[in-house]
């Protein structure tokens, strides 16, 4: 498409979008990549506080989850217009040909970690050598594999799925965990923090930033104003969570209960505290809602090095690139 034509096309779309905004809100579906939990507090608040509505969106929140298709599959099969997913998953899928576009980077920090039994004499990475270790498959494994390579160790890998029961049953000496979730779940299974040795990937310069808001490039080109509105309203939702964490907690608990997801308040609070610390970064080169070029290239290079990604990808072709 020629540049002039493209501009004309966009102007037309903007006009249509303007009509839409001034009239009925545009119905869109946002699929969240896991069951209701504090990880998604910002989206709930954007909906409940009317930020989506104010932005001219009538957002339906959907949830992916275990035994269901992934959030990316929702996009692929046009069951949703927007989806959240981990950056690493998005890059891999993009490489596989799904034209994903990062609309906003929400979780701007890696929460990935390995937890080991201190009682099994695991105090440093090299103690994991030849030890049974459970870990998630898929793009998460990239960070862990980079960690094993960096430390020169080779544990026996056992696939890990939804729970950490195998670890709790001492079936493995270490397991993969999210700081905001499994780490505290272990605590809530009666394991004291002193009993655990923790290897937090970001402490080793590994691990990627996590949840991002995505849509397909095709949708974005058709509805740039809806994409921008979705980005803006979602970030407003997160700012509201930051200002009113207890209100957000009530909403999360209500969502989880309605969905029949086991939940308890102290765990939801723990998760919210850690997610918020990730959403509002303190590092100089990270900004709220933005995927920094460095985080993007770190993830891309690591995934390429691990063989998960074949083609080089430009940041400008992946991120929203200031189209507000």
């Amino acid at each position, binding site marked *: 498409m020629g540049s002039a034509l493209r501009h004309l096309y966009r102007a037309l779309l903007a006009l249509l979008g303007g009509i839409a905004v001034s009239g009925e809100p545009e119905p869109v579906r946002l699929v969240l990549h896991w069951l209701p939990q504090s990880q998604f507090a910002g989206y709930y608040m954007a909906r409940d506080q009317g930020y989506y509505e104010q932005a001219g969106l009538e957002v339906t929140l959907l949830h992916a989850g275990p035994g269901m298709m992934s959030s990316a599959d929702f996009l692929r099969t046009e069951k949703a217009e927007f989806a959240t997913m981990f950056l690493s998953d998005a890059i891999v899928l993009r490489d596989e040909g799904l034209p994903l576009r990062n609309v906003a980077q929400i979780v701007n920090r890696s929460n990935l970690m390995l937890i080991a039994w201190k009682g099994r004499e695991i105090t440093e990475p090299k103690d994991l050598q030849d030890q049974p270790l459970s870990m998630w498959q898929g793009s998460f494994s990239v960070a862990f594999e980079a960690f094993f390579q960096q430390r020169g160790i080779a544990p026996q890998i056992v696939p890990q799925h939804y*729970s950490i*029961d195998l670890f*709790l049953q001492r079936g493995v000496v270490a397991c993969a965990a999210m700081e905001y979730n499994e780490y505290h779940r272990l605590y809530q299974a009666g394991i004291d923090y002193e009993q655990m040795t923790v290897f937090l990937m970001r402490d080793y310069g590994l691990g990627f930033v996590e949840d991002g808001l995505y849509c397909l490039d095709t949708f974005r080109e058709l509805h740039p104003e809806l994409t921008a509105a979705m980005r803006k309203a979602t970030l407003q939702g997160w700012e509201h969570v930051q200002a009113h964490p207890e209100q957000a907690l009530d909403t999360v608990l209500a969502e989880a209960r309605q969905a029949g997801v086991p939940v308890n308040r102290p765990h939801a609070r723990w998760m919210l505290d850690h997610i918020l610390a990730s959403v509002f970064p303190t590092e100089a080169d990270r900004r709220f809602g933005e995927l920094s070029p460095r985080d993007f290239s770190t993830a891309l290079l690591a995934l390429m090095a691990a063989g998960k990604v074949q083609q080089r990808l430009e940041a400008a072709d992946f991120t929203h690139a200031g189209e507000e």
Partner: protein
Amino acid sequence: MGNFWTIRRRMMGWVLGVVSLILLSVIAWSYLTSRRQVEREAEERVRYLTEGAASHIESIVGRLEGIVDGMALALESCGMQLPFEQARTMQDACLRANPEILGVCIAVEPEMAPPGWSDLSPWAYIEQGELRYEDLSGPDHRHMVEEWFNLPKYLGRPIWSEPYDWQGLLMVTYSVPIEVNGTFAAVVTCDVSLEWLTELISALPLGDNGYGLLTTRNGTYISHPLPELVLNESIFSVAEERGDPAMRELGQQMARGESGIVPFVSFLTEEPSWLAFTPVPSTGWTMTCLFSQAELRQRLVRLAREQLAIGACGLLLLWLAVSLISRSITRPVGALEKGAARLAGGDLDADLPAPKGEDEVAHLTRAFNHMRDELKKHIRDLEETTAARERMQSELRVAHDIQMSLVPKTFPPFPRRHDLDLFAVIEPAREVGGDFYDFFTLDDDHLVVAIGDVSGKGVPAALFMAVTRSFLRSFFRTTSNPATVMTQVSDELADGNDACMFVTLFCAVIQLTTGRMRYANAGHNPPVILRPDGDTRLIEAPSGPVAGAFVGAAYACGEIDLPDDHSLLLYTDGVTEAMNKPQELYGEERLLAAMPQAATQSCQALIEHLVTEVKAFVDGAEQSDDITMLAVRRRQAKG
């Protein structure tokens, strides 16, 4: 306000107070000692019930485990070489025979799939009483991500899953791994619903006040009377939310498979309770039972309450008894008090309560009665004495009146006669004596003077004196010889003198022109003649016996000159026997010594001087006899 703390109230207050204190102490002591005992027993009972509950769960769940173990053994023994249809038949038969099982699954590792098996995870289950079937695997082998598949696979042993929500059904799954030639090949599982487990627990014989709950090895609630806790919460999440490290420690003890009993505030009833926990060994679960401490202590409280009730009845009886006793004491005392108050008010006829029995109050009442009687008697005596005294007083008055009416009291007696100076005085004692004096003229030239002292006192003496005076006056009408008159008077008095009274009497007839004086003396004190120069002379003789003592007494007549300005003093023994406090008599010597000072003064002055002297001598001592004196003097005619 009257005195509130009467003896009765004090008595009741003290007795009831002390007894209540003792009673409460005994009850408290008994409560505390038996509480320890009862609490030990309660703990034992709680422990026993909890262990019983755990064994019961173990026995039922253990039977299910046995069924699954048996199926696994059967599959393993044939090396999984079982036609798919037979496997399905076995599943359905198992479900039919064991209605408590929700579903049975044989999930196969894809590489180890037996030949001819179309489905890799056949699951037979019961829904609304109907036998149903589903393949949990599908083309993407979904079963391989399930914990009930992976846990036995990697642990190499049977295991109960954590509770989970399978399409709206809350359940736990028991999975047994099957190995073929030392390689993991499949799992056999059975599912039981949490609802069924909860029913099992609610049917446990834990009494009215206890309830049971079941937690997994991770502390997650499988069964709890609060359904919202199940699946969502673990002991540790609750401990975290409540900020209760002790509860967390409790959960860790459970996770270690320990047993114990601790005090705990139930969050179902919010009552202090006993929490007892013990493992259900084959499952890794923990059976926990809570029993309200209040309920367990009910027996104790009932005991204490009974003791209190009995104590209260006892106190009531004691109150009645003390009330009656104290009333029996204080009522007579009160009546006595009223009677005594009336006695004190002078009403000696007031009724005192009749003394009953032999106690102190009866003695006191008797003493009061006696006192009253004595008082009455004393007052009666006093009245009699007073009457007698008044009678005597009036007698004395009569005697005094008689005495005073008999003696002439007008001085000067002969105002026209300037040649005669005469003065007399009678100072009666309190009890009238029998003194008298008299003077009268026989003619212009003869003056009779007399003084007497009758024996005895009072009215008889006065009467005797009156008679004596009458005789004296009448006999001087017939003769002027004083001795004759004296003899006649004595005889007359002695005649019929039954009372044996007598009189000392001196009488003299003075011829005023010459100063010649004739006299007779019947045992009376000798008169004194005082010369103007102060010289004194007693007229001692002649003197006869007292008059009236016997008939025939004879008296001699004495004669003596009474020159001009010589004074004749007659007196009674009341003067010479006047007594001072040291019991000394005034005596004639003092009398004679006192007289010269008034030798030239008038008779009145002389007598007043002597009376003053005598009174000065006795100095206030009581006068025991009349003091009577008469002085007469012939004065030289003037010019």
